[in-house]
């Protein structure tokens, strides 16, 4: 079971109150985590990554185990602590005013 922390606006959109827990088939990568999220919560398609290119939206970042993994390959394995559910995978909205 993978744990994912979504930005507040995406939790609202997906009707999720808290941390998201979701099954992800191995290998656990950014791509497989996002595929699983979008399959379970189709209203989130296009809000984290582009519908077609699957590129991360520019004002979002992916953090895990106190590391910024945003520029890692989407097919690189995520840390064991993420794959085991010991630590959550963070999807973070960039800080911006207004």
């Amino acid at each position, binding site marked *: 079971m993978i744990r994912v922390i979504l*930005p507040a*606006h995406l939790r609202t*959109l997906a009707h999720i109150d808290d941390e998201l827990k979701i099954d992800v088939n191995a290998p656990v990568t950014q791509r497989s985590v996002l595929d699983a999220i979008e*399959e379970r919560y*189709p209203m989130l*398609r296009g809000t984290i990554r582009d519908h077609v290119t699957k590129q991360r939206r520019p004002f*979002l970042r992916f953090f895990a185990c106190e590391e910024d993994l945003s520029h890692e390959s989407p097919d690189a394995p995520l840390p064991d602590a993420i794959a085991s559910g010991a630590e959550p995978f963070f999807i973070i909205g960039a800080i*911006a005013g207004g």
Partner: protein
Amino acid sequence: MSKVRVLVGTRKGAFILTADGKREKWDVSGPHFAGWEIYHLKGSSADPNRLYASQTSGWFGQVIQRSSDGGKAWETPGGGLTAMPDGMPSGESNKFVYNASAENGKPLTTHQWYDGTQHPWEFKRVWHLEPSLTDPDVVYAGVEDAALFRSTDGAQTWHELSGLRGHGSGPRWQPGAGGMCLHTILLDPNHPDRIFIAISAAGAFRTDDAGKTWKPINRGLKSNTIPDGTAEVGHCVHRIAMHRSRPDVLFMQKHWDVMRSDNGGESWQEISGNLPTDFGFPIDVHSHEPETVYVVPIKSDSEHYPPDGKLRVYRSKTGGNEWEALTKGLPQSNCYVNVLRDAMAVDSLDSCGVYFGTTGGQVYASPDAGENWAPIVRDLPAVLSVEVQTLQ
């Protein structure tokens, strides 16, 4: 008794304002989609309880919302938790992909960029949603970068009417300061295959075959912001309006100049007349008097606020040229708000109501065609759009 429902899109959510036909006491619902930019929301004239909303964010992109109960409950069409019959997840209501097929309208891949180079089309957001006049499941979307999309399944899926970009002039279209947006969609009630659209900064276009082919309709426009001021395209049209009873007569607020066409856009003539300034964004037509037109003059393209700090709606009862200031109940000193292009609307009650929203968060209503004004609300986030439904 009749009611009115005012749909307000703001920088930080949507609000729904309702009143009975007297339009004196208002209920305010919202914010819906709090924290998101709501560029536009509009109801279907075929089913007034069917509403569509464009919810956007610089972080999370585009979301389309739909209501089937007049705005009490909302859903992302097809975006629920149930998979489609083929096992694939649904949730394509925010998927706006430009048509790149070779057989369809010579699809263009670039338009003019700010520095004069060519730039690929990139979807950014939906500026305007226009429901069909007859089918609540059919809705058009005007988007940035400029293109027209249509959904025939209640906004679950979208398909580009790519003949517009395929017209051939696309490489000469260019973004204005607000982006290259398709912001106006007018459906001709007499000719179901005729649609008028407007793009900043390309100009106005018309199709007579339901979107397969398009022609620019900018003859008579003069713009000193392009090298050839009377060019076929490149004009910064801010808004076009028509009266349903007379769809061949169009009124336009251009970047500068208020214009009129009496032949479905084939040619335009200036009707700015005695306006204090002919720069502005919205324009609308009285619901019962096709020659009565409303604009909100703004000082200039570099000073987006009313001249002299006085918020004045101007009304012409002669189809243009002769304008009168409507000021009663509007601030006449120290007012420096703007009124954006989609932020004015009229109801269709016997005494025509006129409504507009400001970047200062006020929504003003006049129940008597502009003679008297009062704020319905005055401290909303900046207002992006105002639409009105008249309900029986």
